[in-house]
């Protein structure tokens, strides 16, 4: 092929690949558009005050809401945080302030592996620990524990990343004032990194808020208000799932509404993260 022809061919190929890449990008982002569109179209009309305040209506009856599921999700998130946040933050402190390089590499490695295992496995573990021995069986505790297990490696990684960014000189100044190391860490270094740590916790919550599988046989779901944490509790993702696979149109409609609320909750959490990270120091 002549030089000119070869050049034209290469240019053509370049343009072709360029177009292909753009097509790929469009295909990858389009599902977001689809899903938002349908969520709003199918769900928005069902979002009303009743939806937020009513309990589910009996099977087959039209009406009712998801009040208990919304509250239940919040309950579960709080319970999960009591497990995930202290362990995750303290672990992150260890990696940043105390750990040697090799041990830290190992811990990070296995934390990343843990982050990749299917969430239903955590449900099975919580089931074996709490539900099976009736301690106390299907409950908010069991669901919270399963979600809390998931939060630990997430919070640990983000906490470490943020603490490492705190300049060394603050630690030195604190120690030079005669503060014991634990005070230097908790009263000087942690507050300096607090915004980042909160960001990491919010991200972990956003991730865990939408999980259904671990709740299937731990929190189990509830058509009524959950009176105590040792009882089964409703949760948004669970409710959406149950309604979606049911044969009732009205429940389908409510599933869309619930999905819209859930996505809204998650987006709110993500937006707060973005807002917190963008503020000037």
């Amino acid at each position, binding site marked *: 092929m002549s030089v000119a022809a070869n050049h034209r061919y290469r240019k053509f190929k370049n343009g072709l690949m360029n177009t292909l890449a753009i097509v*790929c990008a469009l295909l*990858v982002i389009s599902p977001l558009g689809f899903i938002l569109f349908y969520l709003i179209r199918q769900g928005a009309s069902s979002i009303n005050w009743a939806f937020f305040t009513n309990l589910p209506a009996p099977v087959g009856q039209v009406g009712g809401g998801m009040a208990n599921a919304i509250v239940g999700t919040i309950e579960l998130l709080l319970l999960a945080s009591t497990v995930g946040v202290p362990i995750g933050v303290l672990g992150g402190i260890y990696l940043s302030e105390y750990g040697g390089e090799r041990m830290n590499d190992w811990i990070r*490695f296995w934390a990343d592996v843990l982050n990749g295992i*299917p969430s239903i496995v955590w449900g099975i573990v919580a089931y074996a620990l709490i539900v099976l021995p009736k301690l106390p069986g299907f409950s908010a505790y069991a669901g919270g524990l399963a979600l809390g297990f998931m939060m630990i490696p997430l919070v640990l990684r983000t906490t470490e990343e943020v603490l490492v960014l705190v300049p060394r000189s603050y630690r030195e100044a604190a120690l030079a004032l005669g503060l014991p190391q*634990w005070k230097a860490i908790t009263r000087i270094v942690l507050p300096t990194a607090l915004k980042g740590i909160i960001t990491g916790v919010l991200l972990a919550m956003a991730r865990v808020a939408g999980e259904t599988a671990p709740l299937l046989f731990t929190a189990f779901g509830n058509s009524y208000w959950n009176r105590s944490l040792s009882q089964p509790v409703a949760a948004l993702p669970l409710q959406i799932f149950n309604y979606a696979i049911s044969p009732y149109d009205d429940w*389908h409609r409510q*599933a869309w509404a619930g999905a819209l609320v859930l996505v809204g909750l*998650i987006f709110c959490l993500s937006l707060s993260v973005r807002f917190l990270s963008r503020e000037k120091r």
Partner: protein
Amino acid sequence: MSTTVASVSAPAELERGSRLGNRIFYLLCLAAALSIGVLLVLVAYQLYEGSHLAMKQFGWSFLVHSTWDPVNEEFGALPFIFGTFVTSAIALLIAVPLSVGTAIYLTDLAPLWLRQPLVSVIEMLASVPSVIWGLWAVFVLIPWLRVGLFPLLQKWLGFLPFFRGPIYGIGILTAGIIVAIMILPIVTSVSREVLRSVPNLQREAAYGLGATRWEVTRIAVLSYARRGIFGAAVLGLGRALGETMAVTMVIGNNPEIARSLFAPGSTLASVIANEFTEANSNMHLSVLFELGLVLLGLTIIINIVAQFMIRAISSPETRRA
């Protein structure tokens, strides 16, 4: 704290006090960090213990047996292993080329002002929960597939055995498609990180030789990043193996080895989700635990491989994956 020398040289109890405080705090943090190891052991142990009954009963043949009959207590894992692999393979086939293409676009081709918005969109996609994808798939995607894409596929590719058979809309192929959509964000982000870590020197050398943009990407970037991109794909595979909710909602939950892509099937995760609360015998429950153990083993191995590959590509420049 007045000013004499004696008072500032704190009494002995202060000396001990701060040492104790330091020690306690250190141990707390150490215990928390070691919780990662504890979690790993806990997960493996609980699943192993729960499957003990089933393992004793069925042994290794469990993995290759294909009958699933809870009533007669005859159990075999093969349909689920098959379903898991096929849906994951379909998902990878669809997602990896799209993700790598998008990653290339984001790193080298897209105009600068467009990059951050696109990245944000992909992050938002990653945060959509599985059950919502399932909801959308059931009410939007499946009807469209049933009357649109699937008949077309059957028309063009019906000569292949696995494109024959009745079209319900639910099934293995649908599950593969929805899982592909769900793993697109993570494979794209990781691929993008990998491509970004290719040093500019490589690109500049290729440009200097008069290569076109695509050629630069192909020669200088992709071959350098090959391992990392493979790692991204393996990571996506790890995610795909464990996808539960959306799969349960679209796959049909038929505990048989599907004969066609349009037929219903089942995966390890979906059968656990489906049958766990309705298991009516200890054996049934134990078998489900064992399926969970198989799933855990698969995903841990795949994730370990993925983590190694991702760390290998970024070692000289950036130690953090």
